[in-house]
């Protein structure tokens, strides 16, 4: 792992307007570069907006240089690494909620959202196909992991990324705010905060979570980008309910000292999980 500066963009998007959103990405990238960012992370479906419904197929793009929008982003990644998110159309006309890690003008890693929330206000499974893989990937800074929103409400994807060597979990969301109480923060914001803190503490990894802001009809996305250190400390916190660019330094030394103090990775027993799952899945199939 090398030392680097990451920037979390908590931005508004225009629903179903990739061209306008692309322009905004490019502006944010320039601003982040000026502030010293080596990696800029955009929220879930940053190129399209979230509640697309029947717009999903209209705004879908292929994750390669043949697509004019994707080409511009690949080009922008020559100077700074990027995580961008969009509706991906594959060669068989399937649509995924995807996020791409771009660096040096190339696609380094593509993650397709595995867990598609379809309950309450969420309709993901109606409009999207499900990703089937979670894996960490190597970048010029070190090994990272990338998950989209509901993916990290399930404990297994972050756990797998941890075992796969990810030292920084990049978690991107389009989380509609809900659960107003007298608490001062929305319940959705509090719960995501609890979850990300838990991952940072339990896995002794950096966790960088960004969420969009703005409205889509009556849905209010709450922002609250957060960077947590491998010791569970909050290193950066974006505001709620407004656009922001949140920067934090990722320091490998901090990972080393956190794991010396709390050797959870050393003592983890993946084989215990493996045998436990084998037993449980075996029982299910019987």
């Amino acid at each position, binding site marked *: 792992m090398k030392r680097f500066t990451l920037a979390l963009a908590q931005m508004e998007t*225009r629903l179903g307007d990739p061209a306008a959103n692309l322009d905004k990405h490019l502006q944010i990238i320039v601003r982040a570069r000026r502030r010293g960012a080596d990696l800029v992370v955009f929220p879930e479906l940053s190129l399209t907006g979230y509640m697309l419904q029947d717009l999903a197929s209209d705004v879908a793009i292929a994750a390669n240089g043949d697509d004019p929008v994707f080409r511009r982003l690949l080009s922008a990644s020559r100077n700074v690494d990027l995580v961008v998110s969009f509706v991906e159309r594959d060669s068989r006309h399937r649509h995924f909620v995807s996020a791409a890690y771009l660096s040096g003008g190339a696609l380094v890693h593509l993650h397709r959202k595995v867990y598609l929330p379809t309950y309450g206000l969420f309709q993901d499974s109606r409009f999207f196909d499900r990703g089937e893989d979670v894996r960490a990937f190597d970048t010029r800074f070190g090994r990272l992991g990338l998950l989209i929103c509901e993916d990290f409400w399930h404990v297994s994807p972050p756990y797998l990324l941890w075992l796969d060597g990810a030292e920084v979990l990049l978690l991107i969301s389009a989380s509609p705010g809900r659960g107003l109480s007298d608490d001062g923060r929305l319940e959705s914001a509090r719960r995501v905060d609890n979850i990300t803190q838990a991952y940072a503490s339990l896995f002794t990894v950096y966790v960088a979570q960004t969420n969009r802001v703005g*409205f889509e009809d009556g849905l209010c996305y709450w922002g609250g980008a957060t960077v947590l250190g491998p010791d569970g400390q909050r290193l950066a916190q974006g505001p709620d309910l407004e656009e922001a660019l949140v920067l934090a330094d990722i320091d490998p030394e901090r990972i080393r000292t956190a794991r010396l103090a709390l050797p959870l990775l050393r003592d983890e027993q993946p084989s215990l999980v493996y045998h436990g799952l084998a037993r449980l899945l075996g029982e299910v199939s019987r």
Partner: protein
Amino acid sequence: MNELSTSLAIDPDLARRILTGFLRSETTRAGFARGVVGLSGGLDSALTCYLAAEALGPQNVLAVRLPHAGSSPDSLEDAAEVIRQTGVRDITYSIAEAAAPLLASIPAKDRIRRGNVLARLRMIVLYDQSADFRGLVIGTGNKTELLLGYTTLFGDSACALNPLGDLYKTQVRQMGAAMGVPARILAKPPSADLWPGQTDEGELGVTYAEVDRLLYLLVDERRSPEACVEAGFKTAMVRKVIERIRRNQYKRLPPVVAKLSNRTLGYDFLYLRDWAN
């Protein structure tokens, strides 16, 4: 707010930020900069007016007072106080003259029908003012009213944006107090002011404080009717409220389209209002 149960208590500052953001965003995305509010002198429209003034700027909000022959004079004066405090633009348009020939054919005892005519006349004026002022009509209905169907279809429920639609009346009151709605408006019994002496709680047969707690259990927490009775609500009231919610679902939906084609509005033609806005 001692009368609030823990679950109904809200952070009014957070709600204020979200609702002013909502009004600003959804107005400008639709290509507008202005809003029109029908100002009755009651709490819901007063709070809506405060929110709209803060979101859009008072010069971009038109408060429309729409008295009829039987309106309480206090209502006009309370509305005037809101206009003074918020600094919004205002107009007063009496619907008495337009209502007279319509009401002439409706028996005096049929207060619901007469009330609906008045509510729909107000809607006509608001939408006409909306065209003249180039502002979106901002609705004032709250979650209690919407769930119980205590609204006039295409009347007071007609609007482009509904900032208070996810706040129970009890929560509207809490927010109104925090935003500086005049104490007189906060204290008076809620009323549609369609006939002398009319009050919401009189018509509904239950206090807002009570029904809001019940609605919260049923709707937000999805508790069973039996659990609500166990929590202390009378069986008859629980039944009545559930029936009201069910019976009034039609008021909360666009008109039903009969499906014939493969792609039908409302069923499989699905886009938000913010489509590319």
